């Protein structure tokens, strides 16, 4: 239970492409950083320092403000053994917690199964965006994925109400459990039934929502506004998932990365403001992650795929500060001679969220016991 007696809620925000952690939390007094990044660099005089060694990227000012308020835990040097520099494999590993083989079960899916073992609420886990992340995929566990919250509902094109009701009634029969018809058919049957149930409930969320907060007009702000609308409707959702794409900065990083950080940190700030205004922030913690950090040295325009990255845990109940350890910038410590090393296994951070925030047992979910941090009050 959160401090206010409501069940804890987790928002997972995925930065797709591999966010440049070093240019997000800048080691602004370290000459090695400036040597390794002759071009793709955040100038020392622009950064927003949080101590003598580290500073936020100036474009993440809202995040810095929340950090100063003690609401942001920074997880430094997050990663895993034998990091794959492939996005797709990398993201797969983060989604399935299976670094050594190809997993099919998503860790969030497992957490949702544990939160709602009797499948009483198809909205226990809700994804916003096009396409379901593998992290949420788990055969037999209903997940609701929302493309456009303002337009949910099945066969809305059948105008005559009696006809539509008959069609929906028959739809329910056609999509009843299809045991033994193969995994895809079974999955379709389950998904169809969940859509039918979920759509009717979800429709209420936009209707009941009012807010003073004006979210910016960009994809991540829209997604977090949708999260807020569904959370505030009180539909029992415990895990929200959404993604912010575009972090694969091989080139033109200094042109594109700032905008992403601005959109991201502004949207997070607005989101928590919105929740606070509705007295609904205490039960929400957010995990922001990315699949890897970038290479130490820039390539003249951007940065290639690297290893250790960073994550953020944000919320009213968070004990703000720095967690784990910023990997050594000393060239002799570079992984494969090229990458910022990692210091804490990502599964320990999932474990932190699951055990300490959600009140679950993380061991079966992340498949093992990993070092955790203690970022909650």
């Amino acid at each position, binding site marked *: 239970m959160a401090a206010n007696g409501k069940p804890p809620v987790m928002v997972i925000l995925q930065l*797709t*492409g591999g966010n440049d952690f070093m240019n997000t939390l800048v080691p602004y007094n370290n000459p090695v950083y400036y040597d390794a990044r002759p071009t793709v660099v955040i100038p020392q005089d622009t950064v927003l320092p949080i101590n003598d060694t580290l500073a936020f990227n100036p474009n993440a000012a809202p995040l810095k403000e929340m950090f100063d308020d003690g609401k942001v835990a920074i997880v430094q040097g997050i990663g895993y053994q034998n990091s794959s*520099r*492939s*996005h*797709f*494999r990398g993201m*797969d590993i983060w989604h399935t917690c299976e670094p050594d*083989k*190809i997993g099919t079960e998503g860790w969030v899916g497992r957490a949702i199964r544990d939160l709602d073992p009797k499948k009483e609420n198809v909205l226990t886990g809700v*994804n916003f965006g*096009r*396409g*379901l992340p593998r992290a949420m995929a788990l055969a037999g566990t209903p*997940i*609701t*994925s*929302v*493309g*456009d919250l303002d337009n*949910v*509902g*099945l*066969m*809305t*094109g*059948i105008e005559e109400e009696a*006809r539509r009701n*008959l*069609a929906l009634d*028959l*739809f329910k*029969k*056609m*999509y*009843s459990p*299809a045991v033994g*018809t193969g*995994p*895809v*058919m079974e*999955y*379709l*049957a389950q*998904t*169809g039934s*969940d*859509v039918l149930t*979920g*759509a009717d409930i979800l429709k209420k969320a936009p209707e009941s929502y009012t807010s003073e907060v004006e979210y910016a007009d960009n994809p991540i702000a829209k997604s977090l506004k949708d999260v807020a609308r569904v959370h505030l409707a009180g539909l029992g959702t415990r895990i929200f998932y959404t993604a912010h*794409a*575009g972090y*694969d900065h*091989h*080139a033109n990083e200094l042109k594109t990365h700032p905008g992403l950080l601005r959109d991201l940190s502004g949207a997070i700030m607005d989101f928590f403001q919105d929740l606070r205004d509705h007295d609904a922030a205490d039960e929400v913690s957010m995990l922001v992650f990315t699949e890897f950090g970038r290479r130490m040295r820039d*390539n*003249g*325009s*951007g940065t*290639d795929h690297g290893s250790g990255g960073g994550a953020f845990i944000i919320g009213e109940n968070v004990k703000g500060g720095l967690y784990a350890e910023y990997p050594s910038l000393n060239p002799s410590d570079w992984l494969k001679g090229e990458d910022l090393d990692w210091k804490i296994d990502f599964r320990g951070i999932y474990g932190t969220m699951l055990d300490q925030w959600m009140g679950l047992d993380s061991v079966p979910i992340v498949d093992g016991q990993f070092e955790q941090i203690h970022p909650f009050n």
Partner: protein
Amino acid sequence: MADNDLALMAHLLRRAGFGAARSELEEYAAKGYEAVVEELLNPEDSPPVEEDIIDRYYGGEAPTIWVGKWFYRMIGTKRPLVEKMALFWHHVLATGINKTEHLPSSGGQIELFQRIGMSDVRTVLLEVSKDPAMIYWLDNHENRKGEPNENYGRELLELFSMGVGNYTEDDIKNAARAFTGWTITQPIPLYPQGHFKSEFQFSQGDHDEGEKTFLGHTGNLNGDDIVDIVVKQPATANFLARHMYNFFVADEPQVPAWSVEPPQDQETIDTIVKAYMETDGDIVAMLRAMFNSDSFKNAQFKKVKNPTELVAGVLKLVGTYRFPEPGVVAFGAATTLMGQTLLNPPTVEGWHTGKEWIDGGTLNERINFAVNEIGDAGKPGIQDIINRLGAHGGSVSPEEFTDKALDLVGPLPVDDKTHAALMEYAESVGSLDFSSDEAREEATPRVIHMLQMIAATREFQFA
């Protein structure tokens, strides 16, 4: 003609094209399966889409317009495999406009695939290495001597040709060095000149002339040498054959799993690989081996339709856009809601396929799109179905109604549960009467509702 011939022809046209109206299907079926395979493999024997008509009706330059025109081609072309192969390469060599310096280059890439998509693998890989949209997408314009950018070198090996596990990190670095200096001309500004594509440029000064070792070959290798070496690798034949299998025959696991999970049907993939190895990667030879294999013929409804197939297939069914009419630009937005934005794949890995097309949000959109499109009795395809249902002018029993509707939509086989639900609908409206114009008028909305119910079935989601 036998029903199973018609079903097999419908299958071939769903896979090698975007479906077929019933009258088209009957014409094709009369020619016989192998003759139609040859017709599809030799597109130059069929008339092209009339470019001047497209230009006249669908003017303007913007991604939505290019995608709209592409849908118009998919629906109307007599060379459907050309468009299907363009979509195939768009899946494999995924390039997106969300990162583009100059939009026309992205539209140009689809034209490139339409032009060379059925040539040979060497041509495709070489041309795509010089394609402005690809060069910018994977940062090869930033790939310079002394400051190599590995992005293109890595993805060429990992995603475009050999697949993970068949090369080393050093091979990637050396491939990247070989492609240094493969860049693009400064794009011509949109204003006031208008839309012109950027062009490939080899920048000698940025090219690394040093010795490189790639997959055991050492020398002053250039990008062409890398492509030449890559296309001779059995790993490339295997990887692309598996892509073809996954796209045309039956759903495989997602691409990142391929290095560890063996294919479900190695035998058929071997058949395609053999055609590749015998012809130095001739794409038509690979397709011929695949379409004529028994496993292809037996794979009916073993694939989840991708959103483009779903949208184009529904449009073929309802018979709109046989001639230019407004509205074609809307279909790009429709597939976006279903998880596939043409010209804008989510990552260089392309789209996740099969079961991953389906989640609550996308299933909702797929069903609603089809239901909306079908809900208009005036559309020629719907009229045609009604005419065929009432061809005998008399009464059609609920059972006949159900089975004929399923036949005219596919033929679409459904399981007992689906059949029972459709029968329940048919019985709720009683026998259809086509004996008079008034009766026919009354039967029309019932037929439409039946077709909408069919479009909402699980089975309809499969190709």
